[in-house]
C-alpha cells in the first residue's frame, strides 16, 4: 500500500511538471500565432477546432489540472488511510488541499488575472508537497522491504 501511495504522489508531482510544460507550450503557440498575423479572440479560445500550434497545450493543462491531478489527489488521501506510516494522511491532506486551491484559482484566472500570480506560485507548493509525501512513505516502503530481506537472510 505504501508503494501505491508513493506512486500516486509521484504521479501528482509529475503532473505538475506536465502542467508547467503544457502551459508554456500553449503560450509559446499563442505568441507564434500572433506573430504570424493570427488573431486570438474569444471565438478562437472557445472553439474546439485546432487553430494554432500549442493549442493542444491548453487542452492538456485543462484536463490535467481539472481532472487527472484532482482525482489523483483524492486517491492519495483515500489510500493514505490504509498506509501505516507517520504523516502519510497529513501530507495527503496537504496535497489535496493545495490541489483544490490550485484548481479553484485556475478557474478564476479569466475573471481576475492577478490570481495567475498565486496560481503559478502555488504550483510549486503542490510539487513540493507531493514530492515530500512520495519520499517519506516511499523511503519507509523501501526500508521495510530491506528489513524483510535481511530477516530472510538471517533466518
Amino acid at each position, binding site marked *: 500500500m505504501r508503494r501505491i501511495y508513493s506512486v500516486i504522489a509521484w504521479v501528482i508531482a509529475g503532473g505538475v511538471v506536465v502542467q508547467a510544460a503544457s502551459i508554456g507550450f500553449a503560450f509559446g503557440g499563442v505568441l507564434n500565432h500572433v506573430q504570424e498575423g493570427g488573431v486570438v479572440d474569444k471565438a*478562437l479560445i472557445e472553439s474546439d*477546432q485546432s487553430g494554432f500550434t500549442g493549442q493542444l497545450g491548453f487542452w492538456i493543462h485543462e484536463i490535467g489540472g481539472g481532472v487527472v491531478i484532482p482525482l489523483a489527489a483524492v486517491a492519495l488521501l483515500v489510500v493514505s488511510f490504509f498506509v501505516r506510516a507517520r504523516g502519510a494522511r497529513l501530507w495527503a491532506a496537504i496535497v489535496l488541499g493545495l490541489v483544490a486551491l490550485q484548481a479553484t484559482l485556475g478557474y478564476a484566472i479569466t475573471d481576475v488575472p492577478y490570481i495567475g500570480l498565486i496560481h503559478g506560485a502555488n504550483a510549486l507548493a503542490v510539487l513540493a508537497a507531493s514530492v515530500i509525501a512520495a519520499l517519506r512513505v516511499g523511503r519507509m516502503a523501501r526500508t521495510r522491504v530491506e528489513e524483510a530481506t535481511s530477516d530472510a537472510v538471517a533466518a
Partner: protein
Amino acid sequence: MPSRRELFRRAVIGTAVITAVGAGTLAWSSTLLGEYSVMDMGDGHADHGGHEAGASETSVASGTVGGSGEVSVTALTAEADRPADVHVELVARQETIDVPGGRPIEGYTVNGTSPGPEIRARQGDLVEVEFVNESVTDGATLHWHGIDVPNAADGVAGITQDAVPVGGRFTYRFEATDAGTYWYHSHQVSHEQVERGLLGAVVIEPAGQPASPADGTSDVDVVAMLHLYGGQHTLNGRAKDEHVAAEPGSTVRVRVVNTDQGTAAVWSDGPFRVVATDGHDVNQPSEVEGQRVLMPAGGRADVAVRAPEHGTVRLHVGGARSILIGDPDATAPPSPQPSETLDLLAYGAPAPLGFDPASADRTYDYVIGRRFGIIDGRPGNFWTINGRMFPDVPMFHVAEGDVVRMRIVNDTGDVHPMHLHGHHVVVLSRDGVAASGSPWWVDSLDVRPGESYEIAFVADNPGIWSDHCHTLSHAVDGLVTHVMYEGVTTPFTINGAAGNQPE
C-alpha cells in the same frame, strides 16, 4: 505465512475497497441519462415562479393551450393552409468546406456552401423552408436563431422534432413577424455542427419599404457573418476582408452576425450607429465614437456607417476581419480596438415597452454556478443553475399571457451568452442600475462574471423553449434549461432511437 492479524487487516482493506468501488459504480451509473424527455427534467423541483401549477387562468382564456387537453409541440404551427410567400429548399451535406483565402476544412454545408444561402423575406411573409439531410450522419435540424417561430418550427432535436436522418426531410413554416437580422443553424449535436458550418443568415426586411438591398434607412445593406472555420476567422465564409462600394455620404447598413462561441468586438475609427440589436430597432441611436460594441455569441448588431467624402472607412468586425466602406479602390489602415465599450443599457432614447414588467405574473432566478460532479457518467467541472446540476436543473413554468421577470446572475469566472428561444426579452437593469436608453431587446445576452441582469418578457408563444448558453460547449456541460408553457407536451425524447442530441 502472514499472521492472523495481517490476514484480518487485508480482509478489512479488501472489503473496504470492494464496498467503495461498488458504491462508486452505483453512484456513477445513477448519473447515466439514457433516453429521457425534457418533460421529466428538474424532477421534483418544478419551478412555478411564485404561481401554483395550473393556477393561472390566462392560459385557459387564450384558447390556445390549457383547459383539460394537452397540446403537443407538433400542433403549435403556423397557419397550415396559408400559401408560402418565400419557399426555399436547403440541403445539408457532410463534406469539405472550401474557405476562400484560407484552407479547406471538413464540416457541413448547406446547398454546397458554408455559410449556406442567405434567406431574405419581407415582414409578414410566410416563409417555408424544405430541409433535406443528404449526408449528415448524426442527423441534423434547422433552428431559426432569434426568430420567434411557432414551437413546431424551432428545430431543437429531441424537443420540437426528431433529428432529420440521412435521406429525410422536414418542412419549417413560420411568419416573418419582426424585421431584422437573424440566422439559422443546426440544433442537433449543435456544438459540433454549428462550429463546423451548418448555418446561414436570415434577413427580414421591413414591410412597406423599398426592396433589398436598401431598406429605406440605408443606401446599401450587407450581411457580415462571422465564423471560425478550423481556427480561421472568416467574414461571410471567406478568410479575407471585404470592400463595400458606397457613394460618399451614403449610409451602409452592416448586419453583423456572431455565429462563433464567444464575444466579438465591432469598432471603427469613424463614427457609426448601432441601429438594431438581435432584430429589434434601437430607438434614436446616437453616433458612437471611440467605443467598441461587444456582441454575444449568437447575437446580431446592425451597424450604420456613413461612407466618407474621400477614400474609405474601415469597420472592424470580430477582431480579425474588417469591412472597407466607400471608394472600392482605396484602403484605410486598421485602428486599435477601443478599450471603452458602448453600454447598450443607456444607448438611444427610451420608448414604451408595450407591457408592464412591474406587474409580473412570474419571477424567476437563473443563477449560474459551477462545481465538480458527474453528468451522464462523465466527471467534470460543470455549470449549475440555481445550484442544481443537469438534468436536475429548474424548469421555468409559464402560462400564455404571463409577464415573466427573470434575474440572471453569473457567479462563475466565464462570460455566458444566454439565449432564450422563441421570445425576445427586454433588459430592465444590470447590477441594480436601471436601463435608461432605448428598450434593449435581445435574444442573446452576454452575462459577464459577477454580473446580475434583470430581464422581462411576455409569454406569448406557447411551447417548450430552450434557454441556454450559446457558448455551445457550455450547454453540453449542463448550462441549459427550458421555459415550459402549461399544457404543452412533447412526444420527442433525447438519446432515444432517433439519436436526438440537441446540444
